[in-house]
């Protein structure tokens, strides 16, 4: 449970408050010191007094430099005097050197992710999912991981401002009191524009607000829609309900343009649930089947067993056709006119659904029109899924007005004071509203926000918001469970919490946010403490209601069904996509997110206009020739590894946007995807200049997608920071895949793929195939024996002595990995990994320890370079929307090889093995030869070309002058104190979170005392990537213990080592990927396309089924 901090700004030091490291409170305290008052009273309060306070640092720096230049003769250089600064008064619960964990939650739109925040002496450094919330099981998301960095963003709004004037806390309170007084009575002329929120406290305050100011306008606006429209549920069931999907119970899933791994509300909840139905360990395990129809290429689409490249505007026709088949009716036929699709696809899909009735689920994307959702409900109702795979839960109807209604009111001149709560409407409101102009016509605009952004620029007053890690509040998960938001730290810059702002406006007696949340929870101290301790209210999920689909009622919505037309180069469809990292643009100044490559395009720091290969060809931007056929790069030109994209111009209804063109295989032929959230006009250093603003052409009638666009290619070029130019696996065996049918027949399919399956035994006495034939218990024993004993096999090298008590290893399940990138940023947060900036990423110097490899396969690996005729076909360039490339995703990080090639080449023994099988880096030994990175077959080592941790990314090349641009103290606060911050010239890489291992070992030994109970129980240590993984793909543990989870996973028959034939004996192994296509479907492929390519490349067509392996080996005589 978290202490309640006194948020009163008037806390002075002399009142005996707990004390500690002071920097984070200093501004707060400074405001009350006599020195500060004097400073305010002076003629030039800011900047003018440079020689007095601020420049002390520069002075010290100059002095230090002159000392250094003056020779080494000063004894002062030898031993710097360091200080130990203890607390004045001890702080409750705090033990110096040990972190504390508190329950909190990260809200995003109407939902939230329950979290545990790790604090070091009052400084939050990392968040983890709260395991008490069972559906998430302790997992969290990419955005949650990165949100900590926002707290320490030096460019966040650091003061309340009115014009050029800075307001102090008292001024802000006066301002709010004045508004309350001015609009007392009916509130005529007062208007609010807020973001969406699930906070019960906010809902209570808004209700009170409406009572106090009945004529005030309360409107809500979110630029991206992530929940199905309430109107659809109204039409289908006649009740105010929303769906909560139960993916784990569904055997057949159809997604109609729904990216439920990312873009839908509750994506973490759903992805995790989905993985439960996807995970397979034995041949008789059940595995779900996923049909996806989508216009873009989302992560959900990459998981699909059958994928349709269908325009978003054609989804209604698709849904109608599917509903027609499932419901066996022809009512929907008029809606399907013009759908250009093999009818077999829908027929067979419908058959499959009907066969599994009650265990299926049809999900429609939130951005799709009401009709699509109604059809989805109809199908689900017919299949008997209601109450089984889809629960309809009662929700409060929203009484908020819309942004369009607000715009009308502003135009009518009836709004005198507009309060914009969060959001950023000037940037992301529909372009047809002209919100910037409207805002200028409102006499008084008060903006409450985290950044001084586009909206703040047009508002007279800006109130600085608090981060969720520094304010009290509450929120709800997607299933309605109520969560507390607890502060970990006092507001760094005297920010105001949203709850307090509203409470002051409605005249609450105790406007303090803590008091307000306490009041909402009923004011029972004990219950409230439990709430804070657990981090949730048990049993507070939304109530499931029994509903029946009402065909009569729903029929009415189809009268207004939108029509659609065939698309072409001149009538393009534009799909506005929620960006994977920037979301709607709110994370634009977050360096971790900007540098994290998009999971599909692999472009960092920018967005791009995504066009299909077909459109690319028609636009003439496909390089073709050798670039396509030899290197199989993504089809844009590359200059020294940098993607040199053409600039394109998209025009939609007279509005135009310019941006780099990137060809994305797997798109619907005439859909172009514009990721939202980039091109911010007013943000910090990180977000400035990142991408283009797709909101500029987005209007109210086409928030999710719109048709009628055209595109023009200019001759201008832009270099993109693309981290993976390579298109395919080139028929290699990096990701090993099989269809479920093959797996059932031969669970050890992975052993027949790859060179080590064809050579004599490389490791120990068995070939992988023979090994897989051993009984399971023997396999586990052998794995354990190998880990501890490291048989030398046929190796020339001497093997290291692995005699430690534990032997660490990892297993990654490729079958459930959804490629969400959460592990990348979780690792970055845990291990103090710096960002390097766009320019350095272009040079391939990104530092993230985990890389998520994305490979496309289309079944054509017969490239000219390998002696074949050459693949003249563009991948995914087909008229048939059911022809789609497949995607294989693979997290790749240091494999901790037992016979690590990096170690043999290090001239200074900086990278060596420890006795527990870790390949370790001793940073202070490293001299930066980079031989190790050169010799690493997995390319997972990262080199600090510059002092990335110390310098701003634009000062890397400035030499000694760059010291002016060192990282502000604030940014350093996010660093994990348990991990070394690496300097320039040092190699680094994944350590298996060695700090967590050592801490666990120390904790175990501490507990053991004089006893010998020092073995760490299985499951104690979770690496950062494992802990965050929404689908539990990553398992880490002791492979010396044959009963540990990781050992049992490694003993599974579809476990394999990447590049196993090198005999480097990686400690990280992968479980093969499975696909579950329906044999009756017209686009059924007997083998995954990557396997088709593998077979083409290796010249054995019949190899996939694994039988006949011995003949094959005999025939080829170990040719590999």
């Amino acid at each position: 449970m978290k202490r309640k901090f006194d948020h009163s700004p008037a806390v002075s030091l002399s009142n005996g408050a707990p004390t500690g490291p002071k920097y984070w409170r200093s501004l707060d305290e400074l405001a009350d010191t006599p020195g500060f008052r004097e400073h305010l009273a002076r003629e030039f309060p800011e900047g003018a007094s440079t020689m007095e306070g601020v420049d002390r640092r520069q002075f010290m720096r100059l002095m230090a430099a002159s000392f250094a230049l003056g020779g080494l003769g000063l004894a002062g250089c030898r031993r710097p005097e360091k200080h130990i600064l203890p607390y004045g008064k001890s702080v409750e619960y705090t033990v110096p050197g040990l972190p504390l964990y508190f329950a909190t939650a990260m809200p995003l739109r109407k939902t939230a992710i329950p979290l545990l925040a790790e604090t070091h002496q009052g400084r939050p450094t990392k968040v983890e999912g709260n395991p008490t919330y069972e559906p998430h099981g302790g997992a969290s998301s990419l955005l949650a991981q990165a949100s900590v960095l926002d707290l320490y963003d030096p460019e966040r709004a650091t003061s309340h401002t009115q014009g050029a004037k800075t307001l102090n806390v008292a001024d802000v309170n006066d301002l709010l009191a004045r508004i309350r007084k001015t609009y007392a009575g009916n509130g005529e002329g007062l208007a609010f524009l807020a973001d969406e929120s699930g906070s019960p406290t906010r809902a209570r305050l808004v209700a009170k607000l409406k009572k106090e100011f009945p004529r005030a306008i309360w409107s809500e606006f979110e630029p991206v829609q992530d929940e199905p429209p309430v109107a659809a549920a109204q039409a289908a069931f006649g009740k105010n309900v929303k769906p909560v999907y139960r993916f784990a119970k569904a055997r057949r899933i159809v997604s109609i343009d729904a990216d439920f791994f990312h873009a839908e509300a509750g994506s973490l909840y759903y992805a995790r649930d989905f993985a439960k139905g996807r995970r397979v360990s034995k041949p008789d395990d059940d595995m779900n089947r996923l049909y996806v129809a989508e216009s873009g290429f989302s992560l959900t689409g990459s998981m699909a067993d059958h994928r349709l490249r269908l325009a978003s505007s054609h989804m209604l026709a698709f849904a109608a056709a599917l509903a027609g088949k499932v419901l066996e009716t022809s009512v929907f036929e008029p809606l399907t006119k013009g759908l250009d699709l093999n009818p077999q696809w829908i027929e067979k899909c419908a058959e499959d659904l009907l066969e599994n009735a009650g265990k299926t689920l049809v999900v429609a994307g939130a951005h799709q029109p009401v009709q699509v959702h109604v059809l989805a409900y109809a199908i689900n109702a017919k299949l008997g899924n209601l109450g089984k795979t889809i629960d309809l839960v009662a929700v409060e109807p929203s009484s908020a007005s819309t942004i369009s209604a607000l715009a009308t009111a502003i135009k009518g001149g009836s709004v005198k004071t507009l309060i914009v709560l969060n959001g950023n409407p000037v940037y992301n409101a529909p372009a047809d509203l002209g919100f910037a102009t409207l805002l200028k016509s409102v006499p008084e605009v008060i903006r409450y926000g985290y950044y001084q952004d586009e909206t703040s620029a047009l508002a007279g007053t800006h109130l600085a918001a608090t981060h969720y890690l520094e304010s009290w509040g509450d929120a709800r998960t997607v299933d309605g469970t109520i969560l507390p938001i607890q502060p970990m730290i006092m507001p760094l810059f005297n920010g105001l919490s949203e709850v307090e702002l509203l409470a002051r406006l409605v005249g609450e007696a105790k406007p303090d946010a803590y008091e307000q949340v306490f009041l909402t929870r009923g004011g029972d101290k004990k219950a409230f403490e439990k709430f804070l301790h657990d981090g949730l209210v048990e049993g507070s999920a939304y109530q499931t209601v029994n509903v029946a689909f009402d065909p009569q009622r729903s029929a009415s919505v189809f009268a207004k069904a939108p029509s659609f037309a065939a698309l072409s180069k001149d009538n393009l469809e534009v799909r506005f996509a929620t960006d994977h990292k920037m979301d709607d643009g709110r994370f634009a100044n977050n360096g971790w997110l900007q540098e994290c490559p998009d999971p599909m395009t692999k472009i960092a720091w920018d967005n791009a206009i995504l066009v299909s290969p077909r459109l690319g060809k028609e636009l003439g931007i496909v390089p073709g020739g050798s670039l396509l056929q030899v290197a199989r790069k993504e089809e844009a030109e590359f200059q020294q590894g940098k993607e040199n994209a053409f600039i394109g111009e998209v025009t939609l209804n007279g509005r135009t946007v310019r941006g780099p063109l990137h060809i994305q295989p797997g798109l619907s032929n005439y859909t172009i995807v514009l990721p939202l959230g980039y091109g911010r006009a007013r943000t910090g250093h990180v977000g400035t200049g990142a991408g283009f603003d797709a909101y500029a052409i987005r209007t109210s009638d086409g928030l999710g997608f719109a048709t009628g666009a055209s595109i023009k290619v200019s001759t201008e070029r832009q270099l993109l920071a693309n981290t993976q130019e390579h298109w395919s696996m080139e028929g290699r065996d990096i990701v090993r895949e099989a269809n479920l049918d093959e797996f059932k027949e031969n669970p050890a399919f992975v052993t027949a793929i790859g060179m080590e399956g064809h050579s004599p035994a490389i490791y120990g006495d068995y070939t992988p195939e023979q090994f897989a034939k051993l009984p399971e218990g023997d396999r586990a024993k052998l794995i354990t024996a190998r880990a501890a004993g490291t048989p030398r096999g046929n190796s020339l090298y001497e093997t290291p002595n692995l005699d430690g008590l534990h032997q660490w290893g990892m297993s990654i399940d490729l079958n459930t990995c959804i490629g969400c990138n959460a592990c990348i940023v979780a690792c970055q947060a845990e291990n103090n990994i710096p960002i390097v900036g766009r320019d350095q990423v272009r040079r391939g110097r990104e530092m993230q320890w985990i890389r998520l490899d994305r490979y496309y396969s289309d079944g054509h690996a017969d490239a000219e370079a390998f002696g074949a005729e050459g693949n003249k076909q563009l991948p995914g360039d087909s008229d048939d929307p059911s022809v789609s490339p497949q995607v294989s995703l693979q997290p790749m990080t240091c494999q901790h090889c037992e016979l690590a090639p990096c170690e043999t080449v290090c001239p200074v023994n900086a990278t060596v093995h420890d006795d527990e099988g870790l390949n370790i880096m001793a940073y202070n030994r490293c001299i930066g030869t980079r031989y190790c990175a050169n010799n690493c077959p997995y390319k997972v080592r990262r080199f600090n070309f510059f002092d990335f941790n110390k310098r701003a990314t634009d000062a890397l090349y400035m030499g000694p002058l760059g010291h002016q641009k060192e990282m502000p103290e604030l940014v350093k606060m996010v660093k994990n104190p348990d991990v070394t911050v690496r300097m320039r010239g040092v190699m680094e890489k994944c350590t298996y979170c060695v700090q967590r291992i050592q801490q666990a070992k120390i904790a175990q030994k501490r507990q053991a005392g004089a006893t010998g109970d020092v073995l760490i129980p299985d499951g104690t240590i979770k690496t950062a990537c494992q802990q965050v993984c929404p689908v539990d793909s990553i398992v880490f543990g002791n492979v010396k213990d044959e009963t540990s989870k990781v050992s049992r996973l490694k003993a599974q028959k579809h476990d394999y080592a990447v590049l196993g034939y090198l005999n480097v004996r990686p400690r990280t192994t992968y479980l093969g990927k499975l696909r579950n296509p329906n044999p009756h479907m017209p686009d059924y492929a007997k083998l995954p396309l990557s396997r088709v390519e593998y077979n083409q490349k290796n010249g054995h067509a019949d190899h996939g089924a694994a039988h006949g392996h011995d003949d094959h080996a005999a025939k080829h005589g170990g040719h590999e």
Partner: protein
Amino acid sequence: MSKIFPKSANALPLQILIFLGVLGGVAAAGITYYATPAYLRVGYAPVQPVPFDHSLHAGQLGMDCRYCHASVEKSATSSVPAAQTCMNCHSAIKTQSPLLEVVRQSYQTGEAVPWVKIHNNPDYVYFNHSVHVNRGVSCVECHGKVNEMKVVQQAQPHSMSWCLDCHRNPAARIRDPQDVYNLDSLTLAAQGRLDEAKKFVEHAKIMPPTSCSGCHR
């Protein structure tokens, strides 16, 4: 044949020798001073802001180390006590002592007492107190007989090889776990109970790490 070398050259060999000797001496002194790690300085005893006397508190008064260094059993750091801890007693005795003014100030304002760090491990070393004291390594092994020091000084070099001496042969330095905080106690080996020490090391699986990852992360 006339003389090639002038007479003065006779002194040259000696001069060269002296020059080389001096040069060698200066180089040796320079390398010793600049190139050996500073943290090896045994005997470093800086002036502290409060002249706290360990020989009085821990020695004469017999206070346990853990009264002040409270987190030593739980955390990586033993922690220097908060001013509050001092005030537990000093709000009753020596309440007006000018020497304690800094502590009283700290207690009142929360401003930390700037104790000067004596045992200064480099930042890339992650030393953990708790695992040592809970497993039979006494304070005295690294800090010396603090209970006899009027002014605390560094007693041991704290170099890596010094750490490894013990990590490679823990039995020689281990104490009976009951004696860990008794600074006057002897190691088991010194008491002639080396066999017992070896047995303890084996029984308690005292396997101090000797690879880099033990201390460097």
